[in-house]
Each structure stands twice: as structure tokens, then as C-alpha cells.
């Protein structure tokens, strides 16, 4: 366990090798092998570390490794006037939450690496190595993010994954939309990071340390800021701004759908399974802070539910298969934030994990479909692919059912837990969330229907490869099939289907670690994660009242299992088991209704869809244009900034520089004025005198004949005079 720092480092080394040497020297096999070996080693180490962690007693599952001082101590005053030392170590910490995360990241990451070796095989040699270098680099930063034991190391990973996301979205850099999307992702993330980093400053100013555990333990005894906005509320709100950027929540979600410009494995790994959940992870990591700030919690929950709902509605009307999944991701992230906002941190992390499996699965399946269609992403040009892609179809169906919350697949357990906790917190949030779940099931099944069922609507193909590169141009040519022509939809190679099957297994089984008590399970994952969400310091005596938000956030999860059946004295908001089962049934029902509706509309009677779209053409247009949010941002934020930029540039040239040039001009012109003065007035006087003298000397100057001898004559006159004086006067 002392070697946990190797877990991120191994992919980092892989990235270094591939980036420095591989790009020039490695063949595709070597490059892929290096990257996959690095990830496999990281996975093995992570598994071993996790196993060691499990072998510890539950309250001692925390291990910190500090490599060196990153920033050595520098004295700095704190908010309360005392002088602390600002110092940041290169520290890594393994605890249940980060343990779960490294498992998810390395496992899903490894599978996606394997998948990529098949998916990317059409790239040129250098680009292939570059892709794996980026992918490994991403794994490095993501693992740093989750393992960091303090805010700043986490921030390293946080920014680093943003960078990798930028690089990978813009992987097809010759394509304008791809590089635009990459840039958009980075900048929007940076806007979020603004909040994160200011939050970090406040954390240091308040607590005098950036270590997560120390901060949590220091915050534990502080009072819950139920009354209004205190320091903790502001800190958490700022941190949450960071989370909205990274995890694509309102108002900063706009980058994620565009990020689908990247290769599909990237979308699966970064923009579905891991990176986008960093915000959720960060909120969970600071659960103690958040649970002390109920106002922020409410903001988090509201933003989460609003995002979930909005993204789901947009997902209803998209035609691009990856965009549907992207909005689905945004929506599911919204679910996770609902969990965080209602204090169900463990449930959120649980959903994070299950989502990582089924969403990665869905993306990889979509990648397989796109691969089969030679780059086509528009679902209107697909259909009827089921017989061509049996494995993809089966695994994707599993993913769809999981996300729709059909028991006993993984999505059911995690989503149901969130809905249940939301119900306890606020009925409206719950209601919207259930509606969102219904829509989720609907649009996911719509996706399935349009892709796999019905009649084939795609381009025709010739048996012997006539249509050489249809679709390649449209997709940026991610995966050309060598020189051969496209031979119609076909199942993907084994390197792609095996990861699909493995992920499908995960999507089915992952939920069983968190079977709720109501179904007779022990909700093992919540108990496991619990220590990561609480301060080790007990709450001060006055703050133990269980009705407070803190109690809900911290106490309840811990006591949830044994306090079933109304025995929990203060747990007014707790429900009976039957009510809990009822809610569960309701959420399952929502999923089934959604699927059924989609089946009815898109499989049985496709014309209904068109009728609906015509009847509600206004709404349809709004939805398919994503509520015009991009346009709105373009018109306000982007145009505003660029306008300000151009305005200031003009200002700089004309006013600031103008002042400088003006003073230069002033100097020159005043010199000119004084020159004129000099010339006509001062000089004029002089010239007047001169003119008088000139007139007077007109006669005299005739002496100046230019004849040397006449001048000598004058000398002689002088001699004559002197000699005469000597002769006569003496």
C-alpha cells in the first residue's frame, strides 16, 4: 500500500515512453502494448492496494503516502490572524472513496485501452502512439486526482485531465469542429476551475491546511450553517462551481456534448466514465464541508435535478448517437449531484461507479456501431443493425436496461437509492427525478430502436467494396479500414467486443454491492464508503441534534441500516419499509413505461414519432437545438468577451498608447512652436539688429575681397603703425 503512488505513475511512464519515443519509433503493436501494459500494471496494483485496504478494520481504512514537499512551508496568515505555514506535499491517500475510484478508473480504463487498440487501428503509426500517450497521460492525471491527499494535488489531476480531455477531443486536430470543441472544453472547465481555485484559497485561509482529512476533521466540530451564508457555504459554493465545470452541470455543461468530437473510446473513458465524475468525487471528498453548508447543498440538489431534467429533454430529440449518450451522461451526472445535494454521498458515489460501467459500455457499443457503419453517427441513417452486430446489440441492450433502472441491473440499485433519498429530502426534487428517469428510459430505448430495429436506412454497400470511403470524411476519418472498401455493417474485432462483454458483466453485477436494506441487502457499499464522508472529530455537543442537515448527511447513512422500521427516534423523515418498496416500484415502473413508450413509438409505429414531432414542432425545434443555450452563450459570454477584447485593444491603441504618442507629439509640436517663436520673434530681433548692422557694414564689408594680399596688406598696416609708434612716440 506504500506503493500507491506507483498507480498513477505507471501510466504516466507509459505516456512518457509513448510520447517521447513511441511517436517516432514504435510500431502500432509496440505502442499499444506499452500503453496496455502500463494500465494493466496499474490495475493490478490498484487491486492489490484495494485488497489490502479491505483487510484493514473499517475505521482504519486510510493510508497516506507522502513523497516529498511540493511547496515547502512558507509563513502565511490565516483568516483568524494566526500565522500558519503554507505547504503542500506530494501526498497520496488511499481510503474507501479513493479506493473505489482507482478501481473504477483502472478497470474501465484498462478495458477501454484494450478496446482502443482495435478501434484506432486505422490511424497512422505516429497518431496511434500519440493517442495512447494521451490516453495513458489521462489515466495518470485521473489517478492523481483521485489519490491526491490535498486540494492542490487533486487540482493537479483536475487540470491535468482537463488537458488530456482537450488533447483527445482535439485529436483530429485538422478538423475545425474538433479543435473548437477541445478548446471550448478547456476554457469552460477553466471557468469552473476559477471557482475551485478560489475555494482552495478560502480553505487554506480558513483551516490553515489543504489536506482533505485535516480540513474535514477541523470542519467537523464547526456548527452547521443552517441560518445563512457562512464561510463554509461560500467555500463549498465555490468548490461546486468547479464541480459544475468538470462534471458538466448547469450552467457549464455546454462543453460535454461538443466533446463527442473526440474518438469514441475517449468519450467513453473521459466523458462518461471517469473525468466528468471528478466533480462528483470532489464533492464527495469534501462531504464534511458540504454537509455543514445546507444552503449549498440545496443549490447542489437543485442544479443537479435541473441539469438531469434538461439534459434528458434534449436527449429526446437528438439524432447523433453519441450526442444522445452525451446528454444522457449530463443527465446521469445530474442524478449524482442530486444524491450529493440531498446528503446521500455514498449513493452518489455508488451511482458514479455503476454509471461508469454502463455508460462506458454504452459508449463503446456506440463506437462499435459507428465502426460498423464506417463513421456514420446519425441514427436516421442506421436501423436494423441487430443481425449484423449481435454482440454489440446484446451488450448495448444490457447497458440500456441498466441505465433505465430495470432490476436487477446495476443502474436500478444506485438510481433507486438516489430517488429514495431525494424523496426523503424534497418531494419536488424526487418528482422531477422520476420524470427524468422515465425520459431516460425512453430516449435510451429510442436509441436502441433507431439503431438496431426497424429497417436499414443507411447507405447501400457493394459486396466487393465499391464505396470506398463513405462516411470517413464526415467523421474525420477516425478509423478507416485500411485500403479496402466498406463492406457493410459488420461486427467489430475481438479486441473491441471482449471489453464490451466484460463491461456488460460489470453493468449487470456492479449493483449488487449496494443492495438496499429494504430488499434484504446490507448496502455494503455505503458502509464501506462511510468513513470517507465523516470527520473523525465528533460533532460538538450542541450540534448533534439529528434533525439537522448534518445528521441527515452524516448520521443517517451510517444508521440507515439499523434504524429501519421507525425505531430511529429523531429520524422524522425516515420511511417505512413498505413505503420504500413502493417508491422502488414506482421508479421501476417509470423505467418500464419509458421503454414501452419508446417501443410503441419507434418500433411498432414509427410514424407516430413524425406526427409528434410535427404537432409539437416548436418544442421539437427548441429541444433539437438544445434550448439555444450555445447560441445564448455565444451571444453573451463569448461575444461579450471578444467585444471587450477588441474594445480594449482599440482603447489601448488609441487612448493609452495615444497618450504616450500624444505626449510625444506634444513634445514635438511644442518644440515646433518654440521653434517658430524662436524663428520669428527671438530670431527676428536678432535679425533686426543684424539687418541694421548689415546695412551699416555694406561699405565696410567691401574690404572682404577674398584677395589674400589685401589681407596681408592690413597686417602690414599694423606693422607700419607699430613701427611708427616705436619710431615717433618713443
Amino acid at each position: 500500500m506504500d506503493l500507491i503512488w506507483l498507480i498513477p505513475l505507471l501510466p504516466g511512464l507509459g505516456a512518457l515512453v509513448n510520447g517521447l519515443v513511441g511517436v517516432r519509433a514504435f510500431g502500432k503493436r509496440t505502442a499499444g502494448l506499452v500503453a496496455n501494459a502500463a494500465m494493466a500494471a496499474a490495475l493490478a496494483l490498484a487491486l492489490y492496494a484495494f485488497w489490502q485496504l479491505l483487510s484493514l478494520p473499517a475505521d482504519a481504512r486510510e493510508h497516506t503516502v507522502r513523497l516529498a514537499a511540493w511547496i515547502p512551508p512558507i509563513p502565511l496568515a490565516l483568516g483568524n490572524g494566526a500565522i500558519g505555514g503554507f505547504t503542500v506535499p506530494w501526498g497520496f491517500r488511499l481510503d474507501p472513496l479513493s479506493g473505489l475510484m482507482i478501481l473504477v478508473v483502472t478497470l474501465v480504463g484498462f478495458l477501454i485501452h484494450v478496446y482502443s487498440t482495435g478501434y484506432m487501428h486505422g490511424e497512422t503509426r505516429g497518431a496511434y502512439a500519440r493517442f495512447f500517450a494521451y490516453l495513458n497521460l489521462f489515466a495518470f492525471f485521473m489517478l492523481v486526482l483521485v489519490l491526491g491527499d490535498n486540494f492542490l494535488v487533486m487540482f493537479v489531476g483536475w487540470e491535468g485531465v482537463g488537458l488530456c480531455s482537450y488533447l483527445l477531443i482535439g485529436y483530429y486536430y485538422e478538423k475545425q469542429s474538433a479543435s473548437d470543441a477541445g478548446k471550448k472544453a478547456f476554457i469552460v472547465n477553466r471557468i469552473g476551475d476559477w471557482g475551485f481555485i478560489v475555494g482552495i484559497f478560502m480553505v487554506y485561509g480558513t483551516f490553515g491546511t489543504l489536506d482533505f482529512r485535516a480540513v474535514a476533521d477541523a470542519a467537523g466540530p464547526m456548527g452547521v450553517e443552517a441560518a445563512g451564508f457562512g464561510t463554509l457555504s461560500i467555500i463549498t459554493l465555490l468548490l461546486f462551481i468547479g464541480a459544475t465545470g468538470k462534471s458538466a452541470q448547469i450552467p457549464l455543461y455546454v462543453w460535454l456534448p461538443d466533446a463527442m468530437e473526440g474518438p469514441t473510446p475517449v468519450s467513453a473513458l473521459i466523458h462518461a466514465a471517469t473525468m466528468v465524475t471528478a466533480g462528483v468525487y470532489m464533492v464527495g471528498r469534501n462531504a464534511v464541508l458540504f454537509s455543514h453548508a445546507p444552503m449549498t447543498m440545496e443549490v447542489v440538489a437543485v442544479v443537479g435535478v435541473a441539469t438531469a431534467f434538461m439534459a434528458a429533454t434534449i436527449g429526446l430529440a437528438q439524432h447523433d448517437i453519441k450526442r444522445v449518450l452525451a446528454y444522457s451522461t449530463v443527465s446521469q451526472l445530474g442524478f449524482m449531484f442530486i444524491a450529493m445535494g440531498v446528503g446521500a454521498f455514498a449513493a452518489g458515489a455508488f451511482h458514479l461507479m455503476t454509471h461508469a460501467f454502463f455508460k462506458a459500455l454504452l459508449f463503446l457499443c456506440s463506437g462499435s456501431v459507428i465502426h460498423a457503419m464506417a463513421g456514420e453517427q446519425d441514427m436516421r441513417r442506421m436501423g436494423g443493425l441487430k443481425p449484423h452486430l449481435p454482440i454489440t446489440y446484446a451488450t448495448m441492450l444490457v447497458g440500456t436496461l441498466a441505465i433505465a433502472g430495470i432490476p436487477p441491473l446495476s443502474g436500478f440499485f444506485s438510481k433507486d437509492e438516489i430517488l429514495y433519498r431525494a424523496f426523503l429530502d424534497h418531494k419536488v426534487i424526487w418528482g422531477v427525478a422520476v420524470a427524468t428517469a422515465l425520459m431516460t428510459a425512453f430516449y435510451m430505448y429510442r436509441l436502441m430502436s433507431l439503431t438496431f430495429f426497424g429497417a436499414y436506412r443507411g447507405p447501400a454497400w457493394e459486396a466487393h467494396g465499391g464505396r470506398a470511403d463513405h462516411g470517413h470524411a464526415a467523421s474525420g476519418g477516425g478509423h478507416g479500414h485500411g485500403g479496402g472498401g466498406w463492406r457493410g455493417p459488420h461486427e467489430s474485432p475481438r479486441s473491441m467486443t471482449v471489453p464490451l462483454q466484460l463491461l456488460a458483466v460489470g453493468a449487470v453485477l456492479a449493483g449488487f454491492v449496494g443492495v438496499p436494506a429494504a430488499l434484504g441487502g446490507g448496502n455494503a457499499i455505503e458502509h464501506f464508503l462511510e468513513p470517507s464522508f465523516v470527520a473523525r472529530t465528533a460533532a460538538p455537543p450542541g450540534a448533534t441534534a439529528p434533525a439537522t442537515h448534518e445528521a441527515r448527511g452524516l448520521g443517517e447513512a451510517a444508521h440507515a441500516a439499523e434504524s429501519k422500521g421507525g425505531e430511529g427516534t429523531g429520524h422524522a423523515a425516515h420511511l417505512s419499509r413498505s413505503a420504500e418498496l413502493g417508491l422502488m416500484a414506482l421508479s421501476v415502473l417509470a423505467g418500464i413505461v419509458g421503454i414501452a413508450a419508446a417501443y410503441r413509438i419507434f418500433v411498432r409505429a414509427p410514424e407516430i414519432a413524425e406526427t409528434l414531432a410535427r404537432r409539437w414542432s416548436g418544442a421539437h425545434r427548441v429541444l433539437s437545438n438544445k434550448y439555444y443555450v450555445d447560441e445564448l452563450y455565444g451571444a453573451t459570454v463569448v461575444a461579450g468577451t471578444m467585444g471587450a477584447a477588441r474594445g480594449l485593444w482599440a482603447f489601448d491603441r488609441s487612448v493609452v498608447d495615444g497618450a504616450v504618442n500624444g505626449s510625444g507629439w506634444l513634445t514635438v509640436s511644442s518644440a515646433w512652436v518654440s521653434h517658430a517663436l524662436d524663428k520669428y520673434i527671438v530670431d527676428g530681433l536678432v535679425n533686426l539688429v543684424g539687418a541694421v548692422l548689415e546695412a551699416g557694414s555694406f561699405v565696410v564689408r567691401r574690404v572682404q575681397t577674398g584677395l589674400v594680399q589685401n589681407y596681408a596688406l592690413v597686417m602690414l598696416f599694423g606693422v607700419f603703425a607699430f613701427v611708427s609708434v616705436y619710431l615717433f612716440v618713443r
Partner: protein
Amino acid sequence: MSNAANFPILSTILFTPIAGAVLLLFVNKRQENLIRWIANLVALLGFLVSVPIWFWYDPAGPQYQFIERVPWIPSIGADYFLGVDGFSVLLVLLTTLMGAIAVLSSWTAITDRVKEYYVFLLLLQGGMIGAFVALDFLLFFLFWEVMLVPMYFLIGIWGSDRRLYSAIKFFLYTLVGSVVMLLGILALYFHLHDVTGAYSFDITKFQAMHAPFDLQWWVFLAFFLGFSIKVPMFPFHTWLPDAHTDAPTAGSVILAAVLLKMGTYGFIRFSLPILPEATKASIWWVAGLAIIGIIYGALVALAQKDWKRLVAYSSVSHMGMVMLGLIALNPVGITGSIIQQLNHGISTGALFLIVGIVYERRHTREIAEYGGLSKVMPVFAAIFMVMMLSSLGLPTLNGFIGEILILQGAYTANIWWAAVAASGLVLGAAYLLWLYQRTMFGRLENPKNEHLRDLSLREIVTFAPLVVLAVWIGIYPAPFINRTAPTVQAVMQRVNPEYARASAAAGARQAPKIADCDENEPLTPFTTAPCGDAAEGQAPPPPAAPEGGGAPQANPAGGRH
């Protein structure tokens, strides 16, 4: 590791480039390659002789080390007085390194009047080193002015388009500042005479002097003008884009990497410690100008169509950041400011080199002329990427360390400073990424770009040390930070004595030891204590934690405190 033999290392560093310049005078100007070789070797030698001070400087020793002192003009009390502290050690090393890089980068870029060019470049280097090592005010001023002349000619002779305008603007602007600064120096000089009865330009004496507030105020204004023009701060910045745009590549590199540091060096070395009260009275507007500079520079950079001018405006933004950290007047801010000065030298210097590379090949700086260069110049694209990321403050690269320290310091001084200034990071990402996208990404549409050469070995060598430094500072900045500690503490003693007291109490002199703590903690559940806590002394208690209010089984925050 110390300068046991009392070797006059500073004079050696100072006169190596000057001697090289004199040597070049005796070389026939037609032998251009010989001249290039000599200049490169001299510059490399100049860097090598400066390396020992990195190792010999002892952060635990007195503030100024390697002192050399010989009477110069005894009648007015001016001495040839050299000495460096950690801050100047870093800047001297930066100067010699960037000087060597600038000389190397000019190998093929300069084909006209080669001899004069290298003579000026080496003279300039000597002047800059002199300004950083002088501990005599008059000597400092001498070198400060000496720098102007070679730079003027570098821009004026080897520059592009509007070089004369830019050169004259640069010269006049900085000259105005330095004249006013000279008045300030003289005012202090006569005041020192009034107090001690002796005439002296000894900077250490000024730093120990307590001038009355009125005098401080006026001298601060005078110094402010001189230094802030050099930095440059917001309303005085317009010479910079012009000078940068029209200067030859090496000139831009030196200008950005070293010359701008003169201003901030002046603030930290003179304004803050000599005029503490006036500084404290001016915090608000100086910080205001710094923040305006950050945002303004970034926004204007966003609107640029000229590659080099964009980088120049990013300089304005970054130097605003440096000023903000400095005026926060706390150790973290000033440390960050110093580190960021190095960072700015490294990353912006590299960015100018990058522009120079393509300018040499295509003779245009219009961003619109480029696009898709990644395809033809992959190595170049990779280096540009690293340097761009370093400039926009990506963690694990150098820019981040400086910015985080500065902003943390600014936060401690005032929350809003940090909040507003941090938005500069967003804008920084915007203009740099957009620049990168417009030049490197996209389709290679301009046929003139189709056959651009990728970097030659010589060009890779010019970038290599910068990349290594960027990563080193990003990942392990402790050696740099430790070397700044004596300077920061000396400044704190004057402007914010509480910190000096606190760090004296906590034994901040032991800082290097803390930094080297790298053994892993034993496997216990409570290992949250930051490495080296014991030496740090009283780590801050959680502010709102009621003493003893917690449950007994709970270990207080920070484990072993």
C-alpha cells in the same frame, strides 16, 4: 559547498560577457562564423561560471553573500560593491541562461552586421547581470542605464517593420522612468547623509534606514514610475508590445525574460524594504493597477492578430500577476512573485523563441498566415504545447506554482484580489488555446506552410533547458523556494514584521530540511500531518475548534500536532 577560497565569483560572472564583447571587437567582421562561435562559447561560459552560485549560496547564511567591495568614487561614497541574495542568484542564473539561449537562437536569424549584433548582445547581458549583483545604488543605476543602449540598437538595427519608432519609444519611455528614479535615489542619498553624516550609496544601509513618511512617499512615487515602466504596469505598458513586436527574436527573449524583471526586482530590492510605510500606504492602487493589468493584458491579447504582439500582451498580464503577488506583502505572495518572475522568463522567453522560429521561416507574424502546422512541424508543436501550457498555468508545469502562490498570497491580503485576478487564468487559457488552435490545428491550407522545416538540432537544444526547467519547477520547486527565503524574510522584516517574528520563532531557517523530508510515514491510521510538521512548530489550530470541545477519542486536526 561554499565559496571557501573567496573567489570573486560575481565579478567573473559580470565580466565574462563583457570580456567576450571586447574580444569580438578584435575579430574581423567578415568572419561571421568565427564570430558566432566565439559569441556562443562566451555565452555558454558565462552560464557555466554562474552555475556555482546556485550551489554555493547558502540560504541559512547572511542575506547577501559573495560580497566584493572596492572603493569606486570615494569622494561621493560610491563603491564597487557586489553581492547576491537568493533572489538575485535566481535572476542572475536566469540571465546567464537566457543570454546563452538568446545567443544560440540567433545563429541563422542574424545575417546582417553579425559582429555588432553579438557585441551588443553580450554587452546587454553584462549590463543586466551588473544590475542584479550591484549592491551600490550608483553602480546599480549605472548598469540600469547601460542596459538601455544595446537594447536600443538591437531593436533599432535588427528589428522589423517599425523598428525605429519602437526603439525610440522604448528608449525614451524607460529613460523618463529612470531619470525620475535617479531623483529618488538622490533624495535618499542626501537623507542618508543627513542621518548618518556620511555619504554612501550602500544599498544595505538604505535598507536599514527609516526615512520619514513624506520622503518615503515621494521617493516611492519616483521609484514606482521608474520600475513600473520597466515591469510594465498597466498604464505604462504600451512600449512593450511595440518593442517586443519589432525586436529581433533574441531581443524579445531577453526583453521578456530578463529586462522586465528589472522592474519587479527593483520593487522587491528597493521599494519594499527601503520604503515600507509608503508601500503599505500604496497597496490599494498598486494592487488595483496590477489586477487591471492582468485582465486588461489578457483581454487585449485575445484581440491580437499578430502572434508576437499577442505574446507581448500576455507578458503584460503575467507581469501584473507578479506585481500582485509582490504587493500582497506576505511571504507566500512575494515568494510566488519571485518564482513567477522565473516562470515568466522561462515560458514567455520560450514563446518568443517559438514565434522567432516560424518568423525566421516565413517572415510573417500574422496568425492568419499559419494553421495546421502540427502536421509539418510535430516536434515544434509539442514544444509549443508544453510552453503554452506552462504559460497558462497548468499544474506540474512551472507557471502553476507561481500563480498559486501569488493568488494564495493575494487572497490573504484581500479576498477580492484573488477572486478577480484568478479570472485572468480563464482568459489566459482562452487566448493561448485560441492562438494554438489557429496556428497549429486545422487543415494546412496555406501552401507556403507545406514545406516548413521542423526544428533543427540547434533549435531543439535552445528549447531543451527551458522545458526541463518548466517541469522541474512545476514538480519540485522546493530548491527555488528555499533560496528565496532569505530575501523574503528580509523584506518581511521591513514591511510586515509579524511574519519575520513568526518565522524566526518557528525556525524558518530550517526550511530546507523540511523540504527534504521524503521518508514515508509509517502505516498508521492517523498520518495526516504534513511532512515536516515538527520543524514547522506551531501549525495552525483549526480556527473555530473549541478547545477540548471535541470527543476525547478524536485526534485533533493534523494528527501529531
